[in-house]
């Protein structure tokens, strides 16, 4: 068998030293992280469409993975909601941006930032209420319990009641407004909402109907 030519020793040495230097260089650097970097402003969705070469659903999800890498503290929520809008524009059927806004980004300790995330959910809900109501319901709960902002919670809950049309939307979601109104001590308004639900709401479950009727009776007693 013919043997190859001998490699000069200095070439072998160069290869070994450069490889060792490469490994040492990487060992001295921590993995790339943008957790503490500032989030840049979001580009228009058309620019992302141009960059993704028609793979919009993949780009939408990559945007979400990119956003997940940031630390919530100190994050610019105006920029963040711009990116979330982009992700939703790239794939309007994806629930990822709404989930992240309502369940991750809105749960920050900064109430102003939380409100921005919740407003993004409210704004997105208006464009497709029958598909996006679960995230607005979550937003209403956050507004009520975390932000203690009952008028905001009522606004979200009222939107679910008024704007959803699909029979798949459960009655409890439509009843949220009445519960919030009760908490606001606006008993008369809660009574009207519950009465309206019983009269016009598509309540198929007899137990649920009985529960609401009992609730309405209790409210009527309290109003008197």
């Amino acid at each position, binding site marked *: 068998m013919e043997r190859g030519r001998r490699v000069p020793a200095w070439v072998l040495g160069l290869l070994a030293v450069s490889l060792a230097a490469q490994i040492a260089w990487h060992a001295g650097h921590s993995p790339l992280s943008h957790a503490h970097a500032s989030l840049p402003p979001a580009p228009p969705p058309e620019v992302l469409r141009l960059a993704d*070469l*028609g793979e919009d*659903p993949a780009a*939408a*999800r990559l945007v*979400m993975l990119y956003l997940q890498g940031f630390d919530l503290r100190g994050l610019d929520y105006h920029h963040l909601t711009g990116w979330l809008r982009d992700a939703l524009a790239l794939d309007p059927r994806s629930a990822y941006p709404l*989930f992240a806004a309502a369940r991750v980004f809105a749960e920050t300790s900064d109430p102003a930032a939380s409100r921005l995330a919740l407003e993004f959910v409210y704004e997105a809900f208006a464009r497709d209420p029958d598909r996006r109501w679960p995230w607005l319901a979550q937003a209403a709960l956050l507004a009520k319990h975390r932000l203690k902002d009952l008028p905001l919670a009522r606004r979200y809950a009222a939107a679910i009641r008024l704007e959803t049309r699909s029979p798949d939307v459960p009655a409890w979601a439509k009843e949220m407004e009445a519960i919030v109104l009760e908490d606001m001590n606006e008993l008369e308004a809660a009574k009207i909402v519950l009465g309206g639900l019983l009269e016009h709401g598509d309540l198929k479950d007899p137990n649920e109907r009985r529960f609401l009727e009992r609730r309405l009776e209790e409210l009527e007693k309290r109003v008197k």
Partner: protein
Amino acid sequence: MPPAAGLARLILVEARRGGLPWLAAACLAVGLGLAAFLSQVALIETRELQLAIVAAWLRACAVFLVAAFVATRTLREIDDKTLELLLALPVGRPAQYLGRLAGFALCGAALATAFALPLLLWAAPGAVLAWGFSLACETALVAAAALFFAMTLVQPVPAIATTAGLYLLGRSIAALQALTAGGPMGEDSLAGQVARAVLAAVAFLLPRLDEATRSEWLLYGAPPAMAYAAAVGSVVLYLVVVTAAGLFDFARKEP
């Protein structure tokens, strides 16, 4: 066996011996590894995330492998003077050209099948079938374009670069047009009007590849039959255009 079929078979044998199946297997392994990684980082929609990213990766791999294989194989045939030898045979030039193209298109179809099958892990068979067939048509178009440019430009880098340019423009022209329709370019200024007119003229000469092999089909179900036929039909129509241009050029080639 007709000469064209023999030529097609020869290309398939060469693809097998040249390591194309191993490259395809490597692409699949990377895709599946990517899917496993993504399943760990997704908060929700894990299936959708895996499907969208892996489908995009496999589509890009299929197109690149076909374009590189067609261009390098054709240019080697020209450099080795095998083409001259074949041109001297008593076989019609259209049959020779179409035989080659059929071989390359079959390689593309085999890659599309191999790349579509793992997607059955996450998507419905009907959607995968629609995606896979569209990818086979897309790779056939890429093969036709690479064959045409390799025969015409007779250099590997220009042949691969022009094929890639045509493909990328085909996939991004609609987004470019949308970009110029809004923002400062969307205003009724002379520059905006000129930009829009130029892009519209370029779009007339390009395939609408952004409409083909869409990952939405895998995520949300196969498209309506008419929309699907329009998307795949436009790719096939452009394949015929490029093939006709290639036949014209090949018929005029000096032995």
